């Protein structure tokens, strides 16, 4: 018995100093995540409270999106005094979607107050909390998130129990966290003690281009998009049948293909489709909110009962880069005289806050050498800027290793 105990302790301590995430194909890692036995031990139920912020009066909520009028968030406070951590979801992610939920559970378990923030690219955020209604603009999105965080702090109260403020974000949420931290360093309204960025894109534009290109891996080319999309729908359906859960986030799609992993090309295409579902929601919502005339004609008003079927198809067929060139840039161009299409793209890159990140001793970074949202060579930028505040794992793809015991322990440990 004692021998067993000793062996178990050895196994545990061994795993705490060695990083051995087992999946070396970065696309497979992204989609399959961490195999069950290697996952960090987290409670099954996060027991989060879910609340809404009051409806804004600063702009009109489109009638067809009445259900997104108020921004939802989740939180859970410890009984006694503790520091608080805001967790910002990735592209298109809800405050309590898969990966954010895992982070919230891990932090609460480790003794922190936790608050889950929906991504500014999620449809509900675009309708309820985005001042411009055209997301992806890193400085504007940071202002929106910063305002939302302060509103939430006002709503949840118990300031006497909160001993400090921290922030974490993954994927696009990590880039958001960087820009919010930069904003906070100037405005000093929250004063973050520690900030952690997990697998951020370096240049938003280069990452979205890469995500769009992933669809070229569709067997038979883009002309077979429908066929492939149909297969994805079938696979999601099967996953849905098993889990009786429906959420059109990357998580459910990844779940769908776990059981029967396809080839690397198909995996890349699948990842592309996954982000395409997010981008279609973002694009159509921004279009409806602003009446830009991108996919919905500007003189058409959708009612609560209006059919969206006509717009679903083009929304899914256009990509992030189309959004950037034909909507985002034309929308912002009048406000930025002197900028070009390319120089404006650079404003939404972490390079534009490089000086801040270089000097910010309270901002840390976790990344993977083989992250598939980064262009070739981009990973090398991070250690040069973050120095010893950067932890770069050798594999894991895009967040595939997030729930790996060793990585989760590192993430939680960063805030200790």
């Amino acid at each position: 018995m004692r021998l067993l105990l000793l062996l178990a302790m050895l196994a545990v301590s061994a795993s705490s100093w060695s990083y051995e995430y087992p999946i070396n194909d970065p696309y497979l890692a992204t989609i399959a995540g961490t195999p069950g036995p290697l996952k960090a031990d987290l409670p099954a139920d996060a027991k989060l409270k879910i609340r809404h912020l009051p409806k804004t009066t600063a702009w009109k909520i489109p009638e067809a999106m009445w259900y997104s009028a108020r921004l939802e968030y989740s939180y859970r406070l410890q009984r006694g005094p503790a520091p608080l951590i805001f967790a910002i979801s990735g592209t298109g992610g809800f405050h309590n979607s898969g990966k954010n939920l895992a982070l919230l559970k891990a932090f609460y378990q480790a003794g922190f107050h936790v608050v889950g923030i929906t991504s500014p690219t999620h449809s509900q955020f675009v309708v309820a909390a985005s001042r411009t209604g055209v997301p992806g603009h890193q400085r504007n999105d940071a202002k929106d998130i910063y305002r939302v965080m302060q509103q939430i702090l006002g709503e949840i109260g118990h300031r006497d129990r909160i001993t400090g403020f921290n922030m974490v974000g993954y994927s696009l949420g990590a880039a958001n966290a960087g820009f919010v931290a930069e904003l906070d360093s100037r405005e000093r309204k929250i004063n973050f003690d520690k900030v952690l960025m997990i697998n951020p894109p370096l240049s938003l534009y280069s990452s979205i281009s890469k995500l769009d290109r992933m669809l070229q891996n569709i067997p038979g080319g883009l002309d077979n998009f429908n066929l492939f999309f149909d297969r994805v729908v079938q696979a999601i359906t099967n996953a849905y049948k098993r889990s009786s859960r429906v959420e059109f986030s990357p998580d459910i799609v990844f779940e769908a293909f776990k059981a029967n992993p396809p080839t690397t090309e198909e995996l890349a295409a699948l990842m592309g489709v996954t982000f395409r579902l997010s981008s279609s929601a973002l694009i159509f919502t921004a279009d409806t909110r602003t009446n830009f005339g991108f996919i919905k004609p500007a003189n058409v008003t959708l009612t609560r009962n209006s059919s969206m079927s006509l717009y679903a198809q083009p929304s899914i067929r256009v990509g992030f880069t189309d959004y950037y060139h034909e909507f985002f840039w034309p929308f912002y161009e009048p406000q930025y005289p002197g900028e070009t299409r390319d120089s404006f793209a650079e404003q939404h890159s972490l390079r534009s806050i490089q000086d801040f990140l270089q000097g910010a001793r309270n901002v840390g970074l976790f990344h993977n050498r083989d992250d598939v949202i980064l262009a070739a060579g981009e990973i090398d930028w991070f250690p040069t800027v973050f120095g010893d505040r950067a932890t770069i794992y050798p594999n894991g793809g895009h967040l595939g290793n997030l729930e790996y015991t060793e990585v989760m322990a590192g993430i939680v440990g960063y805030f200790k």
Partner: protein
Amino acid sequence: MNHRLVALLVFLSAIALGGCSTAPIVKGNSPDETVFSAQEVDSADVDWPLDVYDPLEGMNRTMYRFNYHADRWVLLPLVDAYRFVMPGFVRKGVVNFFDNLFGIRTLMNQVLQGRPVRALQTTGRIAVNTTLGIGGLFDIATPLGIRYDEEDFGQTLGVWGVKPGAYLVLPFFGPSSLRDGFGLGVDSAFDVWLDPLDFDDHPGRRWVYYPFMVADTRDRVTFRYYNTGSPFEYELVRRLIRTVREIEVQK
């Protein structure tokens, strides 16, 4: 009880049909040009995988919205209260109980589908769980390796070759089809006729049965209306449910 339910359904349908136009409001003679349109990105000869036959879309969308409100104000508070009051093992017992009770429905449909082996297995399950499992509260059959199936009359019609037909969103029950909606009616009528819990002689039992049945049914499904984060949720769910049902028919 049942004619009241029917009256309610008729009433709700009337409301639904009242506000059923799916056409958007257009200012001027025709919609403006857009940057991208369906014609531009797709050739007409390709089937779009999201399309489902939905001539009742206006009513369906109204019903979809009704279900959101029914969830928010009635069903989800009931589920919350149920989860708060009942410990996990009790809820598990309730799940087992209803699985066993609705096994009769499955059995009936397996017979109608001409699947004697599966019908025999289901009979075995019901026999074991009703006796050894104390009226169905415990599931003894699964550890014994006896297969579990769920069949309904909608699936039986599917096996007989009936196509699902128009998409239909039912009040409370959610996404369905003309075929499956009709099937649900037949299954319910069969349950009332069979009366396995002997409501005819013990009408008071209904007051226990229905709250538990409704709470348990909603508790099993984690789906929440308007929570997928897509403005195309209605279209995506419609496609998903259609595909799920066709797979269930084939199974």
